[in-house]
């Protein structure tokens, strides 16, 4: 089956765990969502510096004269490169029939590229709004947070799965009737 992963969850989980331990020993635990703010801060700082400097939240992620990328941003860039290389090497780059629509989504919602992209955009917006309100995402809260036994991370994990499961069920309700 083309969708079955190259690595089993056992091997991938073990390796990912060792990498997060390494990151925690050398620098700090692993997290992604902060880097969206860092990216926004860099973009805004170069286009509208006054607005960037006056925003209380963005200011937490940039010094007055140094709004450049750091370790965390390079880590996310690395994730992009690593994923691309892995996909190329295993012949899974651009493997989808339709690059904008997952086959499973297409079966449920039909051949509507625009509708898929609107969902993808709104989904992304909600993801980062939620992650920033929580102070982390699947990586920073779920993986790194729970691994440090952080109480709030357990709460976040329960909350995202409760809401994610409910939303997924609503989206895929009529699946059998089509």
């Amino acid at each position, binding site marked *: 089956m083309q*969708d079955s*992963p190259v690595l*089993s*969850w056992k091997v*991938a989980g073990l*390796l*990912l*765990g060792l*990498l997060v331990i390494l990151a*925690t*020993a*050398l620098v700090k*635990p*692993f997290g*992604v969502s902060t880097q969206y703010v860092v990216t*926004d801060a860099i973009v805004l700082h170069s286009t509208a510096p006054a607005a960037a400097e006056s*925003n209380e939240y963005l200011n937490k992620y940039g010094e007055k004269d140094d709004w450049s990328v750091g370790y*965390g941003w390079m*880590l*996310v860039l690395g*994730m992009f*490169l690593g*994923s*691309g290389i*892995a996909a190329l090497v295993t012949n899974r*780059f651009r493997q989808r029939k339709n690059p*904008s629509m*997952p086959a*499973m989504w297409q079966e449920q919602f039909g051949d509507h590229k625009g509708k898929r992209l609107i969902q*993808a955009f*709104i*989904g*992304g*917006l*909600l993801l*980062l709004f*939620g*992650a*920033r*309100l*929580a*102070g982390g*995402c699947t*990586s*920073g809260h779920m*993986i790194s947070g729970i*691994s*440090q036994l*952080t109480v*709030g991370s357990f*709460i*976040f994990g*329960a*909350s*995202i799965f409760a*809401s*994610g499961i409910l*939303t997924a069920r609503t*989206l*895929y309700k009529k699946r059998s009737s089509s």
Partner: protein
Amino acid sequence: MKLLLGLAIGTAIGAVMQLGGASSYRKILGSLLLKDMTIIKLILMTIAVTTVGIYALDLVDMANMDIKPTYVLGIIIAGLIFGVGFAISGYCPGTCVLASAEGKTDAMVTLLGGLVGAALYAVVYPLMLPLINLTNFGKITLASVFNVSNGIWIALPFSAILLVLIFRVLKDRYE
């Protein structure tokens, strides 16, 4: 130097996650529909390994921990919002980066939506502060709550429970 280290660790993490199927819409929705447990098992396996590793490092004072504050109400609301985005897009903030690198254009749009969502949060941040400060218990962990000085004594049984769960209780597929 630190930048290169970030790039190297990130590249390894990205490759492992991609090879593990974390960037697959079908795998993520399969998890949320509770039909395909691959991603849930992958996450729990990672947590089982990492928890023991971090608290073992902590014993020799080598863990650079970063505990996030527990503001219960704000985190619950944040999780509910995040969960809707998770199911609608089929990605999370990290996996849409991975999927973008595979040439999936919907993931690139999710990434863009994420940048807008983070910017939106930066704008309304002052309004969110009361919600964050309302039920804030600070940087608490299970170890601090139960007054255990060496977290490893919680980490070990916790990881053992996770391993039993993923190897003995959860099945790969539920149809």
